[in-house]
């Protein structure tokens, strides 16, 4: 993280809570970069997170009001705070298991209500903190501690899900696309209403080592190779799209 962003961290925070090679550190950096570029005041911000590795991005690191909640319920807590005090610039940062599995109901209903929240979903496609169990976002075939012969169920397309629920801003980028991601986070903080950014992140500790990504860098390489833009995707035949992750900003009907 750039030294200039340290002003956004609590002075008592001395080290990152993340495993070596975790993508969440990159995401933490990019969120703060977006906040810095928008010149938002941390005193006016509220960061809400659930339970899991990604929930530790804001809590206790960010030097602002932070609400570290129950597993899956971050959006419900954030809804209460935001609708009671609309002046609070409220950002939810949590993981895929937290926001999309146990908390999936709150995710779609907040999108439906168009609550003025920014939701950043750090999607590492696995339950990291609890030891690498399969997630509702794990790819088919993924080896996890509860799918030792490979995941048999399809993963959620979170962007389609949230768009279908009516969110006005939905984007997906990988931590390997930092500049696009900063722009998407900035946009998500600027637009009125429910904004959702799915961030593909890496978990070398739980996902990588079980799925033949021997080094943390191998997972980043995998993301770099599989993430393509919407424009690139349009040029590809359906069979060429197998295993690709389409990134970009989405609106209803095109995701």
């Amino acid at each position: 993280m750039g030294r200039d962003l340290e002003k956004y961290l609590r002075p008592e925070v001395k080290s990152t809570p993340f495993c070596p090679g975790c993508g969440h550190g990159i995401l933490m950096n990019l969120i703060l970069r977006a906040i810095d570029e928008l010149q938002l005041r941390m005193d006016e911000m509220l960061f809400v997170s659930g339970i899991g590795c990604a929930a530790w991005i804001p809590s206790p690191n960010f030097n602002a009001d932070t609400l570290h909640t129950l597993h899956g319920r971050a959006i419900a807590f954030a809804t209460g705070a935001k609708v009671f005090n609309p002046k609070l610039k409220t950002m939810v940062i949590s993981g895929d298991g937290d926001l999309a599995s146990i908390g999936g109901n709150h995710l779609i209903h907040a999108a439906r209500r168009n609550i003025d929240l920014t939701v950043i979903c750090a999607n590492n496609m696995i339950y990291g903190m609890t030891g690498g169990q399969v997630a509702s976002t794990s790819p088919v075939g993924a080896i996890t501690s509860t799918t030792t012969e490979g995941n048999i169920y399809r993963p959620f397309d979170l962007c389609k899900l949230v768009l279908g629920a009516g969110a006005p801003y939905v984007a997906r980028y990988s931590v390997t696309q930092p500049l696009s991601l900063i722009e998407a986070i900035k946009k998500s903080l600027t637009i009125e209403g429910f904004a959702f950014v799915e961030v593909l992140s890496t978990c070398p500790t739980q996902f990588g080592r079980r799925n033949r990504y021997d080094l943390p860098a191998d997972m980043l390489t995998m993301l770099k190779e599989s993430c393509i833009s919407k424009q690139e995707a349009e040029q590809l035949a359906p069979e060429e799209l197998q295993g690709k992750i389409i990134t970009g900003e989405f609106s209803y009907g095109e995701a």
Partner: protein
Amino acid sequence: MTRREIDSTLSPGFYYFSGNEAVAEGAIAAGCRYYAGYPITPSSETMERISIRFKDVNGVFIQMEDEIASICSIIGAVWAGAKAMTATSGPGFTLMQEGIGYAAVTETPLVIVDIQRAGPGTGQATRVASGDLMQAKWGSHGDYQTIALSPWSVQEMYDQTIDAFNLAEKYRVPVCVMGEEAIGHLRERMEVKPTVEVFDRVKKQGAPPFGTNQDDGIPPMPAFGEGERLLVTGSTHNAFGIRKTDDPEVHANLVTRINNKILKHQESIIKTESYYLDDAEIIVAAYGFTARSSLFAVDRLRKEGKKVGLLRLKTIWPFADRIIHQIGSVTKKLFVPEMNRGQVRGEIMKYAACEVIPYNQTNGEIIHPHQIIKQVRNLL
């Protein structure tokens, strides 16, 4: 804490409300300005009335997607500065338990009104019971305290909802009003006084929000957006909210303090009412709707010259252990009628030296006065 005397929101006078409507009016009078809920029989009338009446008082109402979201969103609103509540019934109360534990450990003042219906399971949604009392105390994991009140009239649905908000603010704790279907749906006359006594949480800039050197153990409570850069977490935390998930001393201190801050004040929290206790050979110990039937029965038996008294528990948790101990040492028999399988009787037996006779009914019906009269006559 700070105490204020404010004008009632309704004009002073007499009203003909249902218990559930009285809860909504009590909440508004106490300063509740955020309500989140989910429809459930037999409590929905509170939410319906709030949805209309909040327009008059600039309150924020939201019907959430489930009871889990309801309790979580009121916790969020409380930390944003609101006085907030939800109302529900058994199945919803069960879903809220994780949130209640979170509110206890983050010392979030809030009010939950549970209009108890016949369980377990879906049970009989329109029928009465008081089977959720243990859930109000033990429903979430870990050791914590809540306060639970037990109203017996529409008037008390109003008054105890106000009390619940005041207790929540005084002690920074979730407070449950354990109504029953029979009170929630009962319509009767109640009075609104010209003014209401209201307590507000203490604010102290820069003070640790989760620890205090004061004897009372209740730290001041700031809100989001006040520049305090709060750290609120349901994980074990130190006085400033910093997570300490493997420090034995921090955990022990936190759990001890959130329990003691209630137990140390139980003398001022616990409210009971006594009828004909002085020379009573049998004392009926009752609460909620059953205390209404019990008073009718005791009055009747006294007219017959029988030495029977009534102790009414207006507070269920913390439990009136000292009062029960004292009464149990002077009377011969305690008769405990309940619309459950003996949830309070078990507590009474812990503290009363005398014989404790249970009378339990779990058929979805109220316990009628004639049932109590018959049972007590047999004991005399």
